[in-house]
C-alpha cells in the first residue's frame, strides 16, 4: 500500500465534488472521474433553490433541520454562489388554514426562523403576487448557483492535490479477488481538459477505495460489479423565465404538489417542478404538458407569468432511493434522505461504497458522512474541515465586493463579473490585454471566458456553466460563435467549430420547450444569424462535395462593362 491512501470518486456532481474536496483536504490522494462535464447529471439540472428546510418542515423534519443547518454553512463558505433572497410560503384562498399553521409550527420546531405576513405585506415585498394571496410565511430560503458551487469544490479539491477528470466515463469496475480495486475509464479526448478531436484513450485507475457518487446512475455502476442498487430516478421540469418576476423564492403553502415554486436565479426566474418516476435517467420524455402546467399553475401565485416570456425548459432527474421493501408508490413520498451503501456489508463486495438519495442543499453534509466512512475504512483519522474553510472565490468576498476596482469594465459588467468570480475576480480580471464583453446578455468578458477555457478546454458547455455565457435572453444567438472564437489559436480551427456546433445544439435543446411568442421570435433571429448571415447550416467545410469556386461570380470586370447576364440589367423591365 502506498504512503497516502488513494480514493477514486465516480461522479462529478455536487456530492462527488464535495467528497473529493473533503477527502483531499484530509490529505488523501483523490481522483474524481465524471463522464460528462462537472454537474452533467442532476446537479446541473436543479432549480437553484437553497433550502431553508421550510419545504420539509411538515413532512420530513430531520431533512428540514439538516437544510437550515447547511444553508447557514453555505452562506459562509460559498458566499459567491449564494444569493440570500429569502423565501415566502404563500397561501391562496383554497389552501387550508390548517396546513398553514402546521407549516408555521413545523418551521418553529426545526429552528427555521419565520414571520407571518398579511397578503398586503407580502405584495409590498413582491408586487407581482396575486391579489388573492391571503397571507404568507417568510423563511430564509435562498438561491444558489449549482454550477459555480460544484466547480468551486472541484477547484478546491485540485488545490489540495486531487486529480479531476471530466469526460472520463467509467467503463468497468476492476475487481480482484472479490474486492473493488479501481476502475477502467474511457477518456473522450485523452487525459486532462477536453480537447475536441483528440483521440480517446482508455485508462485503468487503481485505488484503495472507490466511492460511487453517481446518483441516479448509481445502479449502472453497481451492475458492473454485479450488485443491485435500486435507485428510483424521478424527473422534474424547470421552466426558465427571461427576467425575475420575483426577487424572493415563492413557495405555495400546501402539501405536496406539482408546480409550486418560483426561484429567482441570476437574471432569470425558474419555475418548478414535476415529480414522476422514470426508467432511465438519460432517456425519458420531456413533455409539453409539464411546461404548460408550470405556467398555468404558478400563474395562480404570480399572474404575470401567464403571458411572460420563457427562454427554455430543462428536466432533472432526482436520485431517489429507498431501502428495499419500503414499497412507496408515489415518488413524491419517497424520502429525500440519503443512504450510504457499503457494498462490503451489503453485498459482500469490499472496496466500494455508494451514496444515493439526498438533496443538493445538504451535499456537504453527505460528503462529510461518506468521507468519515471512507477514512474509517482506510484507517485515516483526519477530520472534516469543509464547513469551516471557505471555497475558492468565497473568501472575504463581501469585503472584496465593496473594494472592487472596475478593471476598466463598465460598472454593471464589473458587478456581474465579481458576483460570479467572488474573490477570484482580481486574479482573473486584472489583465492588461483588451477585455471586451463577449456575452452581452450576461455580461461575460473575454478574461472570464479565457479563465474558464483554462479549466475546461474546448468544452464550451463547461465554459458556459462556469461563466453563464450564452445563458441569457438570446440563448447564445449573439455569442456562441464569439465564444468558440475564444478557443482559437490555443486550439485549432476544426476544434473551435466542433465546439461551437456542440454548444449551439445544447442551447437549442432547452429552447425547444419555449418556442412561442417572444422566444420563438428570438429563435428565428438566432437561426437567421447563424444560417443566413454565417451560413453555418451549410458551411462548405462540413460538406463532402468540394465547391467549384471558379463557377461563381469572381467580381468580373465591372469596370469594362462586361455583361454576362442573360437578360437586360438596365432596369427596363419594371415600372413602365
Amino acid at each position, binding site marked *: 500500500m502506498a504512503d497516502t491512501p488513494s480514493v477514486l470518486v465516480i461522479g462529478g456532481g455536487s456530492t462527488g465534488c464535495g467528497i473529493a474536496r473533503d477527502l483531499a483536504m484530509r490529505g488523501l490522494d483523490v481522483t474524481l472521474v465524471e463522464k460528462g462535464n462537472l454537474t452533467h447529471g442532476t446537479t446541473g439540472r436543479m432549480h437553484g433553490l437553497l433550502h431553508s428546510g421550510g419545504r420539509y418542515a411538515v413532512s420530513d423534519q430531520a431533512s428540514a433541520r439538516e437544510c437550515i443547518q447547511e444553508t447557514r454553512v453555505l452562506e459562509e463558505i460559498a458566499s459567491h454562489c449564494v444569493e440570500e433572497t429569502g423565501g415566502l410560503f404563500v397561501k391562496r384562498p383554497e389552501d387550508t388554514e390548517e396546513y398553514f399553521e402546521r407549516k408555521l409550527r413545523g418551521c418553529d420546531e426545526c429552528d427555521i426562523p419565520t414571520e407571518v405576513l398579511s397578503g398586503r405585506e407580502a405584495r409590498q415585498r413582491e408586487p407581482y403576487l396575486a391579489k388573492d394571496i391571503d397571507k404568507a410565511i417568510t423563511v430564509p430560503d435562498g438561491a444558489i448557483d449549482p454550477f459555480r458551487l460544484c466547480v468551486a469544490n472541484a477547484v478546491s479539491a485540485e488545490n489540495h492535490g486531487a486529480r479531476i477528470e471530466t469526460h472520463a466515463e467509467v467503463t468497468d469496475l476492476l475487481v480482484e479477488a472479490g474486492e473493488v480495486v479501481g476502475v477502467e475509464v474511457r477518456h473522450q479526448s485523452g487525459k486532462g481538459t477536453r480537447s475536441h478531436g483528440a483521440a480517446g484513450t482508455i485508462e485503468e485507475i487503481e485505488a484503495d477505495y472507490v466511492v460511487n457518487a453517481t446518483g441516479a446512475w448509481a445502479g449502472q455502476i453497481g451492475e458492473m460489479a454485479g450488485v443491485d442498487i435500486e435507485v428510483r430516478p424521478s424527473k422534474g421540469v424547470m421552466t426558465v423565465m427571461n427576467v425575475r418576476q420575483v426577487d424572493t423564492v415563492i413557495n405555495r403553502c400546501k402539501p405536496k404538489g406539482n408546480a409550486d415554486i418560483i426561484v429567482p436565479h441570476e437574471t432569470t426566474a425558474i419555475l418548478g417542478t414535476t415529480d414522476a418516476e422514470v426508467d432511465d435517467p438519460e432517456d425519458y420524455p420531456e413533455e*409539453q404538458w409539464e411546461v404548460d402546467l408550470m*405556467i398555468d399553475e404558478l400563474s395562480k401565485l404570480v399572474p404575470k407569468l401567464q*403571458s411572460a416570456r420563457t427562454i427554455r425548459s430543462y428536466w432533472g432527474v432526482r436520485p431517489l432511493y429507498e431501502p428495499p421493501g419500503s414499497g412507496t408508490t408515489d415518488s413524491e413520498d419517497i424520502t429525500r434522505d440519503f443512504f450510504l451503501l457499503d457494498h462490503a456489508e451489503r453485498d459482500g463486495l469490499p472496496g466500494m461504497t455508494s451514496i444515493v438519495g439526498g438533496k443538493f442543499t445538504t451535499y456537504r453534509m453527505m460528503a462529510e458522512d461518506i468521507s468519515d466512512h471512507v477514512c474509517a475504512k482506510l484507517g485515516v483519522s483526519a477530520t472534516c474541515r469543509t464547513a469551516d474553510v471557505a471555497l475558492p472565490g468565497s473568501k472575504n468576498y463581501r469585503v472584496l465586493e465593496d473594494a472592487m476596482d472596475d478593471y*476598466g*469594465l463598465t460598472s454593471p459588467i464589473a458587478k456581474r463579473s465579481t458576483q460570479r468570480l467572488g474573490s477570484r475576480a482580481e486574479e482573473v480580471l486584472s489583465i492588461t490585454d*483588451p477585455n*471586451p*464583453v*463577449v456575452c452581452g446578455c450576461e455580461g461575460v*468578458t*473575454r478574461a472570464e471566458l479565457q479563465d474558464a477555457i483554462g479549466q475546461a478546454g474546448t468544452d464550451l458547455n463547461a465554459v458556459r456553466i462556469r461563466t453563464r455565457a450564452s445563458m441569457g435572453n438570446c440563448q447564445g444567438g*449573439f455569442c456562441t*460563435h*464569439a465564444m468558440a*472564437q475564444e478557443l*482559437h*489559436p490555443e486550439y*485549432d*480551427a*476544426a476544434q*473551435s467549430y466542433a465546439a461551437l456546433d456542440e454548444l449551439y*445544439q445544447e*442551447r437549442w*435543446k432547452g429552447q*425547444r420547450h419555449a*418556442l*412561442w*411568442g417572444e422566444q*420563438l*421570435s428570438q*429563435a*428565428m*433571429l438566432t437561426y*437567421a444569424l*447563424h444560417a*443566413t*448571415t*454565417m*451560413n453555418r447550416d*451549410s*458551411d*462548405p*467545410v462540413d460538406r463532402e462535395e*468540394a*465547391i467549384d*469556386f*471558379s*463557377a*461563381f*461570380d*469572381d*467580381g468580373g470586370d465591372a469596370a469594362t462593362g462586361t455583361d*454576362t*447576364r*442573360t437578360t437586360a*440589367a438596365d*432596369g427596363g423591365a*419594371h*415600372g*413602365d
Partner: protein
Amino acid sequence: MAIEQDVLVVGGGLAGITAAISAAESGAHVRLVSYKQPTLRHASGLIDVLGYTPDGEGPIVDPFDAVEDLPEGHPYERVGPAAIEAGLDLFDDIAGDTYEGNHTDRNALVPTHGGAVKPTARYPDSTAAGLASDGRDALLVGFERLVGFDAPLAAKHLAAAGAPFDARGVTVEFPVELSADPKVTRFAHLLDQDKPIGGGTRGVRRALAELVNGRLDGEARVGFPAVLGDDHPREVRTDLAEHIGADVFEVPMGPPSLPGIRLEDRLYEALDEAGVSIETGNPVVGFEADGDRVESVVVDRTGNDVPYAAEEYVLATGGLVGKGIDSDREGVEEPVFDCHVAQPSDRYDWFEDEAFGDHRFARFGVDPDRELRPMDAGGTPEFSNLRAAGSVLGNYDFAAEKSGSGVSLATGFHAGRLAGEGAT
C-alpha cells in the same frame, strides 16, 4: 375622416419599401406605415436570391436555373422568374453603384464573419474585393475589442473550404484608445471622422493603414470587419486602400450591421425620391372591411385610433423576427388582418430536434395566390384588395435557402405593381 391614399403599405422593411416604390412607379399615391425599426440592420446587407434548394442542394451557381424546380406555393413559384428579375432590377436602380453583382446571373461567394462563405446575388461594393472566387491572396484584419470576427480563425476556415487563394489573418488593436467594450458603430464613426490622433496630423485611417502595412506580406487585398464607415464608407475604404496599397473589403458582420444600416438609409432616400409618404413609429391596430374588401386600417397615433383608407393594401410586416407573424402557446397568427396561417396544431411539431433541422416554424406565414393575396384555409383570397410581400409569406425557409432578400424584392415588386395598377 380617414386619411386617404391609393395604396397603403404596412411595414417598412425591404419588402414594404420595394412594394411602395413599385406601386408609386405605376402612378399611385402611396403611403407606407411602419411601427418598429425594420430588421434590415440585423441583416448582413447581402442580397441573397437563392443559395440552396429547399432540399439543401447547393451552393447554387445560378439561382434562375433552380427557381423552376421550386415546390408549389413557394413565393418564387407564385410570382415567377420575371418578377424576380424585375425585383432585382428595381433594387439595382435604387442601389446604384453602392452594390455589385448585377453583371452576372451567377451567385457570388462572400466570406462572412463566422468564416464560412455564403452564396449571394448582390453584394455591397464594400465587399466586392473580398469574393472567394477571386484568386488573389487576402489578409484578414480583426480588432482586439471587436468580438464576433476572429480574423486568423476565419482565414483558416476559408482555406479549409478550399478557397482558391491564400488567406491569412491578424488581430490588431484599433489605433485609437477605446473603452473596453466599444460599440460597432464607434469604430465606424472614428473612421468617418478621421480625426488626427496622438496630437499629430496623422488621421485614424492612415494610422490603421500603417498598422496593417506592418503585417502585410504581399497580399493584394485586405479584409476588415464591416465597420469601415457609416456616413462615408467609400472614402474610408479608398483612403485605407491608398495608404495600404492593396484593395480593401469588408467582411459582413452580425447585428448591428453597418452594411444593413447603410442599405436602410439608401432605401429610405429612394422612398422619398419616389414620392412615397412615410410614417414610422405607429402600429396598425385594426382594420375595417366591407365584404371581401378592406375599407381602412386603424393606426394608433399616440393613443388615438386613426383610420387610413386606400384602394389597395400591401402587408409587409415581416416574419417571426419582425412580428408580422406572432404566436402564443396555443397557435400562430398574422396579427394585423388575422389572415390564415397554416400550422401544426401541436406546438411540439413546430420545430425539429436538430438545431439546423428542417424547422416548420421557419416556414410559417400567410399562403398567397399568384397575385399574392393571402388565402384562407379553403384557398380563397381573404380580401380582394390585400396583398402580402416578404417574410410575412410562408412556405419558404429564407435562412436555409439564403433567399430572404430576393423573396422580399420579387414579392414586393409584384405586390406593389399589382396594387398600384389596381388602385389607379
